[in-house]
């Protein structure tokens, strides 16, 4: 059923009996034109755009658990397109554009909220680096403003301006940045894809690949073999494991990133704020919880949980930035396993194995990419050619040297 005020009223009057599943819990069929592995945001968006933009009718998404159980369901929901390097900026801006029309396109309120993303700076050098980035954005036609301390004070008067170890000198603001309700994005894509005939197969873990003449021809799953014309991997933190099943080694390490939510509070923090002198960023969810995070723990992990040093480090950053947070309590903290790529940027590319396509390496920033990642991955799979805005995300860039290293820290994933 289509969602609208009317459908809500109709159901309110009939005791909520009219609702039907948002997506079918499909049984796997023996063959699909395309099988997407991974029912996170990226996999589901890919399937949706394969069906919608490229007219594919036999597409399945296979997910080892429940959809959204990976990073799509556990990220801090920040969306923005404030990148520095050309290979990135055009792509993330395309994603931003898709976010801006997403809810109407999918008939689902994913609470895309453009409340502004503010990156604070604390030194002249940092200001210049942000100016460089803001200018790159503006040259791309993207909104960016460089604010000074007085402007920041007006926006967030309760930051520590007067007793800070690293004084706040200003910030880079992208007003179009903001947040989206992460789980809803997954459900919205699933529902929209399902309506276009995509099979969403949950509790179906890929355990291996079927091979014919060197090419992949299907997947072995916990629910049997599924043949496929093409296979797209969109398994976020598990990319190395899946690629390993096809004897591919990727320039990726899996690391844990933690996130935090506080108890619910009345509105306090309007947009997204990031601290430039420590590892801390924060926003407030519509429910009222302060959602925040910081640096990755910094060691390879598949455990989906982290440790106290990072938790303390994040909260130290929080207190340094906003000493009014003191009595706000951490309600829950958790971890997600991410693909940290060797230059901090993603990969959307064919693999050396015919029929196998790769969408990986999103590090801690792939949520905002969800729409464009799906869009571009669908394009690549359907047309066998990279989408123009994702052309830089090649797998061979490590060999050619065309790296996209926003931070300039080199092949050291735990520093990206």
């Amino acid at each position, binding site marked *: 059923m289509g969602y609208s005020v009317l459908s809500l009223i109709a159901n309110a009057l009939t005791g909520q009996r009219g609702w039907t599943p948002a997506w079918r819990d499909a049984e796997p069929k023996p063959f699909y034109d395309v099988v997407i592995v991974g029912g996170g945001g990226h996999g589901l968006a890919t399937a949706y755009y394969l069906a919608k933009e490229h007219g594919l009718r036999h597409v399945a998404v296979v997910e080892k658990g429940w959809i959204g159980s990976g990073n799509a369901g556990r990220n801090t929901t920040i969306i923005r397109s404030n990148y520095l390097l050309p290979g990135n900026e055009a792509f993330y801006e395309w994603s931003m554009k898709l976010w801006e029309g997403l809810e109407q396109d999918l008939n689902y309120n994913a609470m895309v909220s453009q409340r502004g993303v503010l990156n604070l700076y604390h030194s002249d050098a940092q200001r210049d680096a942000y100016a460089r980035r803001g200018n790159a954005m503006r040259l791309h036609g993207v909104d960016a403003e460089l604010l000074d301390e007085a402007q920041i004070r007006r926006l967030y008067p309760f930051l520590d301006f007067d007793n800070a170890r690293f004084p706040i000198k200003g910030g880079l603001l992208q007003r179009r940045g903001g947040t989206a309700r992460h789980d809803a994005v997954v459900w919205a894509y699933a529902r929209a894809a399902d309506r276009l005939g995509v099979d969403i197969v949950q509790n179906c873990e890929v355990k291996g690949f079927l091979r014919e003449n060197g090419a992949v021809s299907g997947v072995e799953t916990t629910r049997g073999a599924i043949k496929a014309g093409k296979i797209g991997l969109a398994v976020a933190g598990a990319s*190395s*494991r899946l690629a390993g099943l096809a004897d591919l*080694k*990727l*320039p*990726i*390490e*899996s690391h844990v990133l933690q996130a935090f939510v506080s108890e619910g509070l009345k509105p306090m923090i309007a947009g997204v704020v990031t601290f430039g002198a420590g590892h801390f960023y924060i926003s407030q969810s519509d429910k009222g919880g302060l959602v925040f995070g910081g640096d990755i723990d*910094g*060691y*390879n*992990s*598949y*455990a989906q949980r982290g*440790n106290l*040093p990072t938790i303390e480090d994040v909260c130290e950053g929080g207190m340094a930035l906003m000493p009014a947070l003191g009595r706000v309590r951490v309600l829950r903290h958790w971890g997600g396993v991410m693909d940290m790529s*060797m230059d901090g940027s993603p990969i959307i590319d064919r693999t050396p194995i015919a029929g196998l396509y790769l969408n990986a390496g999103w590090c801690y920033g792939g949520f905002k990419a969800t729409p464009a990642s799906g869009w571009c991955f669908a394009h690549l799979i359907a047309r066998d050619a990279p989408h123009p805005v994702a052309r830089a995300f090649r797998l061979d860039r*490590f*060999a050619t040297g065309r790296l996209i290293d926003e931070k300039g820290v080199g*092949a*050291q*994933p*735990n520093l990206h």
Partner: protein
Amino acid sequence: MRIPCPYCGWRDAQEFAYLGDATVERPDPAAADAPARFHDYVYLRENPAGPHSELWRHSAGCRQWLAVRRDTTTHEIIAAEFVRGRGARR
């Protein structure tokens, strides 16, 4: 997480800096296929779900580089030893 430094004893992982995969060996830069081998050395690291050999430096302690065996699914530390002297040419 705590790591048993062979010199200092059990210490919080916070005292250590992490570098990752300890199994890669720096190739001979003079080899004919050095570019390909360096590519693999710099960019392709082991990333197993399970026991992993990895480099940690006891930065806040004895400053030694350690090879630590650790399970990436449980964070259990299986063993730790100095890299110096381990397979080193004397």
